[in-house]
């Protein structure tokens, strides 16, 4: 299998869990760039062209609340989980845990 093919499969695998990672990170408020840094520190490198539109989509779906704040001489838009987002995150987390356990069993077999 070529490196290119492997990379494509890796990206497909990661794409599905990015929403979970973003929602999980936004238990605390973050603006766009700080969210990216937090994800990078957690080992999830996501480019800005993917992250910012994703965050806005989640906000449009009512999963995130957002607010503009002035700080360090600059305005920034802060996002945080909404009530609906919090509830959805709990469901998705359970789903993720179950999936992870089941796949782990398959991989160990």
């Amino acid at each position, binding site marked *: 299998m070529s490196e290119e093919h492997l990379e494509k499969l890796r990206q497909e695998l990661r794409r599905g869990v990015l929403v979970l990672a973003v929602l999980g990170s936004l238990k605390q408020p973050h*603006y*766009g*760039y*700080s969210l990216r*840094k937090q994800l990078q520190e957690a080992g999830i490198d996501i480019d*800005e*062209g*993917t992250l*910012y*539109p994703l965050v*806005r989509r989640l906000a449009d779906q009512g999963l995130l609340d957002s607010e503009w704040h002035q700080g360090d001489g*600059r*305005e*920034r*838009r802060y996002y945080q989980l909404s009530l609906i987002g919090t509830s959805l995150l709990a469901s998705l987390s359970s789903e993720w845990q179950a999936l992870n356990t089941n796949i782990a069993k398959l991989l160990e077999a």
Partner: protein
Amino acid sequence: MNLIDRYISAVAQQLPASRRDDITRELKANILDRLESFAEEHGRPITPADESAVLRELGHPRQVAASFLPQRHLVSPAWFPFFTQCLAVGLLIVFVIQILAAGLTLMSGGNISIGGLLGGWIHGSLIMFACVTGVFCVLSNLSATQNLSPYCHWRPEDLPPVKQPWQRISLFDSSMQLVGNLFFLVAMQYFFWVERATMPAAPLTVGVGLKSWLMYLSATAVIAAGINLWNLRHAYWTTTKLGLSIALRVILGIIFILIAQTPDKLAVIGESQLANYMGILNTLAFWICIGATGVNFFEASRSAYRLILTKKLERD
């Protein structure tokens, strides 16, 4: 105007007015954060070259603007299989119209050429492609149209009872045969109905011997076109279709043998010098008829072989 403002302006241009300010305001804040971080990492102030590199990394303004908007498709993946099916049928319809138009032109005394036919088909196909794509573009971008797809209402019971690939009849084969049969049908009516005096400049026409068979050839072309339409609707071989096909091919083969034996297959109109070569031309027509006989008997034997295989499959 610095690079960032130019970039933001270029992105804004691609966004709907209702969301423009909100998205560009946030995008600009994110870019400034990125540049600030870049300066910290490198321990020096940002240069225009750094700005350019950061903006290039972010992406082309059109791509960035598109990423903030709902995904749009010219033809969505859900509609694409039906789109290609419609294009294939559309190409066939355009081709049939072209051939029929050419036949009518011939009957009315006009001239046709391969180049004109090909150009007309390409022109008609491009118009058909644009119209079909336009319809599917609308269908792909309206959520209310999801239930309109014929693929939503299919039933496994309607799938063709086909086990082997050879049992299928390709759309290409059926359509080409249909076009050929329709063309010959129209062309034969020309020789059958139009009097010599009204014919255009063509110096050759069918002779008495061949003309007496045109009615039978026309009848077989009508039946063959009917079978082609049946094959287009149900694109797989059945024992009934194969039986009909064998009978038709055998009849055609016999007709061509009988035509080959007639003395006056071709005739000259007026005082053409071709009259001196009628012997050679009739010999050529004889061998064309023998060739047509061979092709029809070969097709009949192919259908007979398929019939044997089909019956064997039915027994298994």
